[in-house]
């Protein structure tokens, strides 16, 4: 199988965020692999180990994303494609998917994996649009993948603890949910081996070309304090409190 995994480099979760010029101050940031993409990579490597073939990673972004590409190569990806652009976040998901589709089409992949969404922009669209452009069937929020007799059986996460099992043909595209498997570490031997693996560079000459799309403003969530009193018996009040903590504050 030829498996392509699309990985994005995003600001690290604990970065200090300061809105600046329609984005955040980049000088403050450190970067890491988008979390669901790390799981997509893990799944791509696991499937290759099971079924043979090749895992190719693809990432769009400036020179700094090579660090994330190297990490993927060190973990066991066979080679990489770097779509070079200084500022791909100015692209709409459609444009990003177009560039990715152009680079992927010639590879004739059996399976394309992306993360469910990105931790920075959170569109959750790129994978799905990419499937459409490549003319592939897709499934989203995938929790489990099984390749059997040239076809796929996947488990999708629905709301409220429900799951859906879908059978689909190959080739296909899946957007992967975090937690699909335990992430591996890059071994030191893997890091050394990665030094000689191929990174194909594809320069993107074009600027943003989706007239309907523009990022206006980035702002930090306003912090607010609110006090809420619950009526009723202690049991009822406690039940309401648990409900709010679970579904509004999302701390339970």
């Amino acid at each position, binding site marked *: 199988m030829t498996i392509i995994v699309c990985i994005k480099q995003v600001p*690290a979760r*604990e970065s200090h965020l300061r809105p600046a010029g329609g984005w955040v101050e980049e000088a403050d940031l*450190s970067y890491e692999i988008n979390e669901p993409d790390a799981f997509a990579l893990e799944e791509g490597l696991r499937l290759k180990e099971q079924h043979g073939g090749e895992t190719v990673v693809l990432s769009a972004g400036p020179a700094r994303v*090579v*660090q994330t590409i*190297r*990490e993927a190569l*060190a973990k066991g990806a066979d080679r990489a494609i770097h779509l070079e652009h200084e500022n791909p976040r100015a692209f709409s998901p459609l444009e990003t998917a177009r560039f990715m589709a152009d680079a992927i089409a010639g590879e004739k992949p059996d399976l394309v994996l992306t993360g469910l969404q990105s931790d920075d922009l959170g569109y959750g669209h790129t994978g799905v649009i990419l499937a459409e452009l490549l003319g592939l069937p897709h499934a989203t929020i995938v929790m489990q993948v099984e390749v059997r007799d040239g076809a796929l059986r996947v488990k999708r996460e629905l709301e409220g603890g429900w799951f859906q099992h879908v059978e689909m043909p190959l080739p296909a595209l899946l957007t992967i949910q975090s937690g699909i498997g335990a992430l591996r*570490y*890059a*071994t*030191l*031997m893997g*890091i*050394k081996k990665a*030094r000689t693996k191929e990174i194909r560079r594809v320069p993107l000459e074009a600027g943003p070309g989706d007239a309907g799309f523009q990022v206006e403003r980035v702002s930090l969530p306003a912090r607010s304090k609110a006090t809420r009193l619950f009526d009723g018996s202690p049991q009822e009040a406690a039940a309401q409190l648990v409900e709010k903590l679970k579904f509004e504050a999302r701390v339970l």
Partner: protein
Amino acid sequence: MPPFRGVDFLSVDSQFSEDELLVRQTARQFVDERVIPLMRDSFREGRFPSELIGEMARLGFLGANLEGYGCAGMSSVEYGLIMQELERGDSGIRSFVSVQGALVMYPILTFGSEEQKQRWLPSLQSGKAVGCFGLTEPGFGSNPAGMRTTAKPDGGGWILNGEKSWITNGTMADVAVVWARTPEGIQGFLVEKGTPGYTSSDIHGKWSMRASVTSSLAFADCRIPEASALPGAKGLRAALMCLTQARYGIGWGVLGAAMDCFETARQYSLVRKQFDDRPIASHQLVQEKLAWMITEISKGQLLALHVGRLKDRGRADHAHVSMLKRNNVAMALECARLSRDLLGANGITDEYPVMRHLCNLETVKTYEGTDHIHALVIGERVTGVAAYR
């Protein structure tokens, strides 16, 4: 616990290559996820967490800076970053890896015969075998040249007699690198576990390095074959070459312990409130301690990095490594003490890692050449006068 994000006041990270950062990331994640959750109980129980050996081996941590025989071939700086992260977890874990790599695999690779390398290096690298290094004796610590352990040639073999003490990994070891006096001078030997006349027992009652095995080795008419002598390991100089490797790793390792102490104290000082509901971080005396720590850690990072770059260019000598080991250990120990102080009563419990680091660092100050001895090495370098005796 949130993952460790590093301590980097001076943008030292900008001096590291992509690969160096990746190596550190692997070690950092491993320590956050696998080592730190074990350490409180391991230390309390006085137990070395041997369940970590297999995974450390698989990741390439054992003999990481050596070439061939399955070793990862890391640069000195990459190796240093691994040591830093491991000791952020616990000095005992770093000690295990130091001994295995720098004091057992390094001498076998550097001084051993091809047969000895084939026999031991792959299994030491993969963690299937554990090694120890026996230089210190009950009567000879800082002055190993006085050692009493003897190796007498005897019809195509050797007979060992004597005692080694304070030997890390001693009772766990499948193979011991033992230094003994022959009629021609000091030489290194490989002694296998189970050889008749070779026994070992653990030293108990330690307040330091509780998560590391420390043992005594005894040799009573212990007969070993001719082929167990390390052919190139002749003279005390060979033993000191091993120590230079291990000391280099310690110079980086203690940075990790210091970073953990600093970060623990910094975070604590922001949440702990005293007087007018103000965090203790808002008091000048508290800030002065944090400022001292971060300044000294930053200087220590630059020292380690510089010696590492020299070493990678083949330009580091043992006196440079003495400066690195001595300065950084003393600095880390002081950070641990200051951090302990800033945590108040909480600082003395094992809910926080600082007292554990503090206790461990007392060993690190002593072993691999005491603080005094490294001062004398540096003193000799700048005056030309050896002041050891």
